[in-house]
């Protein structure tokens, strides 16, 4: 029922999407996905079986992000939607910036650095007088959104750390002040968030806020993070599952792994910055459950209900990559090999998906929203955030599993 509602909310896209499927390259991608479903588990040990290197996979993915930045033209990074390239996405470009800085340090290629700076400068131009950033794509006419603004903070803080240029820090502080000032009494954000939804994945906002606290020592940031984390903990079940965790009005009873992972990652990162162990443990509790699912099921489904029962028959590729990153972080914290073990398998799956869908220059190296490509998470789309998290995951694996 929710799926039908979801489709009916996007009717304007149905005709161009349907027509775009007739494009030979798009048709080929769809056919390849259909065949892939007949030969399951071809992704087992995919990277090693095909003599691929993590660094090579990262570069391939980064090339797609570079191509996106070039095509969009403004400095921001957009998505490929089978029939068009979108405009730049301020939120996503914000968290892509640290990925390019990481790539610059690993590969020593100045181009990554220059592109990161170009993205950060684009963000500066888009900042609203109140301090926040608009939702969705550039120029869509959306109001400022706390979640999206929080992600821009990530890029600005990192660019400040790398360049020491005060303009990035000043913009980050201005954004952070707006975020803190619009927080609700209970620690959540409602009026200034997407569709005015009260959601727990704003921990992914408090993480950069906590990082900013470590730079500025402004206690308001720390207090805001704690207030939000406590709100999230009040909405966490004993089995680690979160209430109010989906980025839609319809699917809160079974949130998508993308937003579950935002919540977990945000809790752990906030806990690390503020040195509050209970937030790390709360994130770990949910991560352990998802890890278990990733291990026992042939594929990690996109959605889970309050008993961690699967509620989707497709994979959210972004959620997979984000979970892999979380598990690698837990591997670093705990030293337990089983975290890395599962992250390696998620990396294999995503590398397989990258290869499967790399047809033609618009798609080469990109990661699709879902597996199979027509799954209900960003169907027939190559979201820039999927490539961002995949790149981060393979860069992480490259560090430990060369």
């Amino acid at each position, binding site marked *: 029922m929710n799926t039908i509602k979801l489709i009916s909310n996007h009717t304007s896209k149905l005709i161009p999407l349907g027509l775009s499927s007739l494009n030979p390259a798009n048709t080929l991608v769809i056919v390849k996905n259909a065949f892939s479903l007949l*030969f*399951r588990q071809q992704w087992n040990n995919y990277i*090693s079986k095909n003599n691929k290197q993590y660094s090579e996979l990262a570069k391939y993915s980064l090339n797609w992000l570079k191509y996106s930045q070039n095509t969009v033209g403004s400095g921001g990074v957009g998505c490929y939607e089978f029939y068009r390239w979108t405009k730049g996405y301020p939120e996503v470009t914000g968290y892509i910036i640290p990925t390019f800085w990481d790539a610059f340090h690993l590969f020593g290629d100045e181009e990554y650095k220059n592109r990161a700076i170009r993205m950060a400068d684009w963000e500066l131009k888009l900042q609203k007088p109140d301090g926040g950033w608009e939702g969705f794509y550039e120029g869509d006419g959306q109001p400022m959104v706390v979640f999206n603004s929080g992600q821009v903070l990530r890029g600005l803080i990192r660019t400040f750390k790398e360049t020491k240029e005060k303009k990035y820090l000043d913009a980050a502080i201005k954004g952070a002040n707006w975020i803190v000032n619009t927080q609700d009494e209970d620690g959540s954000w409602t009026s200034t968030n997407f569709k005015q939804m009260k959601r727990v994945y704003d921990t992914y906002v408090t993480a950069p806020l906590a990082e900013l606290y470590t730079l500025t020592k402004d206690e308001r940031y720390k207090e805001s993070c704690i207030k939000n984390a406590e709100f999230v903990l009040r909405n966490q079940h004993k089995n680690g599952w979160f209430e109010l965790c989906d980025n839609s009005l319809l699917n809160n009873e079974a949130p998508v792994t993308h937003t579950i992972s935002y919540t977990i990652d945000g809790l752990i990162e906030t806990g690390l910055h503020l040195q509050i162990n209970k937030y790390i443990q709360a994130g770990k509790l949910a991560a352990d459950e998802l890890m278990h699912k990733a*291990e026992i099921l042939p594929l990690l489904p996109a959605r889970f209900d309050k008993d961690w029962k699967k509620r989707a028959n497709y994979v959210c590729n972004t959620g997979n990559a984000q979970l892999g990153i979380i598990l690698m972080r837990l591997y670093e914290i705990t030293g337990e090999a089983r975290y890395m073990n*599962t992250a*390696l*398998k998620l990396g294999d799956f995503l590398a397989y998906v990258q290869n499967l869908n790399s047809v033609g220059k618009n798609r080469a190296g990109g990661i699709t929203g879902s597996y199979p490509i027509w799954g209900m998470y960003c169907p027939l789309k190559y979201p820039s955030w999927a490539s961002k998290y995949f790149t981060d995951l393979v860069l992480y694996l490259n560090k430990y*599993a060369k």
Partner: protein
Amino acid sequence: MQSKAVLSKQIAYISINPSGKFVKSAQVGFKDVGLFPEFMIHVNPGKRIKNEFKKYRLGIFSNFLIPKFKQHFGNKRSFKNEIIEIEIPITKKVGALNSEETIRFIKDNNIKYLINCGAGIFRKKITDINGLYIVNAHAGKLPDYRNMNVVEWALYNSQKVIGTIHLINSGIDTGDILLEEEIYLNKVSDYIVAREYAFDQVIKIAGKAVLDFAEGKIKPKKQPKEGKRWYTMHPYFHKKLNLILKTRND
């Protein structure tokens, strides 16, 4: 105390491969303590294959059937000196593990001990049969090494490999412990050999565990709920483990 002949009539092996090495090794252990289980419940592998097909689709050949075939016929290194033929008087073939047919056979024949030699996952309707003890051999210390590839993980973590005979309940590797014994793998330099050897050794002590339990010499020890679950080891760690094992033996 009942005689061993009477006890033997209360024991059944259950397996999808009744002529496989796991059953043979179990038989060696039972013979050593003077027990000769009366029954074999042969579970038809069809349902297992069907489940695997759902998982792998056409990839079932490369991901399941061929590796299983290789495993069954290819590696007999740890068993070459112990091929035995002990007759099991009554064999019953059942269509599925958790079927009414299996339950009826267990009840009709007053089977008290069911020795799991690779039958699959037991559902509640079997584990809840009154007076039935399902015995499992697990090559890892419980509750620290639950689930899969526990021999490899224990070796990777530089810990002792402990074989555990435990009762099966509705969870995975969570039932009461009957017997634990260290498995010595000092000279092994390959993880596949280590795993096969360890499982071979642990199933061999199932006979002793059942006899001692039936005679009241051991009391089942409850496991704490909390434990660690381990999963299929990624080939990256297999390679690393083999290096560790080789270095250790050099």
